[in-house]
């Protein structure tokens, strides 16, 4: 008995640098998870990039320098305005894991976006790190805040560039259902009317409670 397979090469990515970005848009920030996995044939070059003193280990300084090298190849813009991306956290695998093609460098990046108005916005993410040999993935995560709703994603063909269209809502718009808001509003109007009636001649003490 025989099994015949038409297999001639490896089981895994060899000569490409897989760079997967997941982007979370929040009301006051954009968070980016960037996973960098060099293929087996890319590993030596990437390790050499990181291990600048060639001592075979990746020091904290070398890791930080490589992270900054990656950061320098990224662009993040909100509504056309470039933003400074900061490294929030990083994780580097053992070099041997990278040489086996299973090591992933994980970077957690963040940028603050203060004072976003309600309405439509766009965030642009562009990754040109190792442009010549990379395979890119870029995706918006479902926002954790109900104030943000992603309305569209646009990419260039190789996913090195992603534009996320989103809508920013006012906090009150989504925190309570309409019927409850209506009820609260009606109650407030009623209370106001009652207070006005009771506060006549009391100097307009807005904190006064009827009967107090």
């Amino acid at each position, binding site marked *: *008995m025989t099994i015949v*397979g038409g297999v001639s090469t490896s089981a895994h990515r060899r000569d490409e640098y897989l760079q997967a970005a997941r982007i979370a848009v929040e009301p006051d920030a954009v968070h980016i998870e960037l996973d960098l996995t060099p293929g087996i044939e890319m590993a030596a070059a990437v390790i050499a990039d990181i291990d600048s003193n060639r001592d075979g280990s990746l020091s904290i300084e070398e890791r930080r320098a490589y992270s900054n090298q990656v950061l320098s190849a990224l662009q993040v813009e909100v509504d056309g305005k470039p933003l400074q991306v900061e490294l929030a956290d990083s994780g580097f695998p053992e070099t041997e894991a990278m040489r086996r093609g299973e090591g992933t460098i994980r970077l957690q990046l963040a940028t603050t976006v203060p004072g976003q108005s309600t309405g439509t916005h766009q965030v642009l993410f562009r990754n040109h790190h190792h442009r010549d040999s990379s395979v890119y993935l870029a995706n918006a995560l479902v926002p954790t805040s109900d104030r943000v709703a992603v309305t569209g994603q646009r990419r260039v063909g190789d996913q090195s560039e992603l534009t996320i269209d989103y809508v920013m809502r006012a906090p009150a718009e989504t925190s309570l259902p309409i019927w409850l808001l209506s009820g609260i509003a009606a109650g407030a109007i009623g209370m106001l009317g009652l207070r006005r009636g009771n506060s006549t001649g009391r100097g307009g003490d807005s904190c006064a409670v009827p009967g107090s």
Partner: protein
Amino acid sequence: MGMPMTTRTSAVLVLGCLAALTATGLAQRSATPAAVAVTPATATARIVTAAQALLATLDEAGRAKVQFPFAGPQKTRWSNLPGPMFQREGLRLGDLTPTQRTAVTALLSTALSPSGYRKVAEIMGGDEALRNAGATAGPPGTGGRGRGGRPGGPGGGGPRFGEDEYFLAFVGTPSTTAPWMLQFGGHHLAINLTLGGSQASMTPSLPATQPASYTVEGRTIRPLGQENDKAFALINALDTGQRAQAILNYRVADLVLGPGQDGRTIQPEGIRASALSPPQQTMLLEVVREWSGIVTDAFAEPRMTEIRSNLPQTYLAWSGPTTNGSAAYFRIQGPTLVIEYAPQGGVDHIHTIYRDPTNDYGAKFTR
């Protein structure tokens, strides 16, 4: 543990599995409807009985190897990679006696549907074909030839392929009431079946294959052939306007939510199933069933009911050509479902992932 099964040929195993499956399938088809309608609680009881039967064949060392605490890290330790690129824990099939291996087969065929078990056996057969073809995955000069064998043996630390290199683990103690997980996997395969009384979740799971097609005694085996063919039939059933919505204008080279991406939910893209005609929706569900139907029917049917109820909020996205035989990525994503099918550079190496973002590892019933 017993005598290693080093002399068993892959062809015997694959054909043996297929013969057993055929017999099982015929028996199920000929059974009365009442006998087929196994309740989820009964299914769990049967799986637990099969798990305990396996445990009874093991010595103390074997039981220690297979058993992991439910709250520990083993639950999320799975991968598409071969060993030792990814070092799995648990019972290695190649270390088992024929009796123990038969008990593993009985357990898997109880936990999975006939078609699901066949898929698993064929994925393993594909890895055996990969081993026979002498595939390499190590960098030049490292001696990393994939010839099977154990770590530290001849050939060094190169990837190990073949049916002996699959591992079984119990995360938690097999129980008809308390949560536990049956974990089975190796290169291109991760089955994570969490059970909790009458509830079950077979997500996340990763059925993949290389090669995508191989022959056994002149018979062509395509482990993920149904997934491929049904998906191409679906995309070709869409009209021009629907395709314009479904087909992404960018390349997707790999899984987005593969191993290590637990707990993440990406923004859905593509065409909503509500924009499909009823026949097209049926075709979409038939694609989904290729993953949801891996588990035994008692759990697959309620899962399909749930997925069907969420159909209006479910999306189909496609990247690549629409001619069958081409390499194309697709994703089906709904409130309780993520399926990705990602060819790795060509049509002969496929990765897929199956998730429930609300119930991976039985999150709904194990809290």
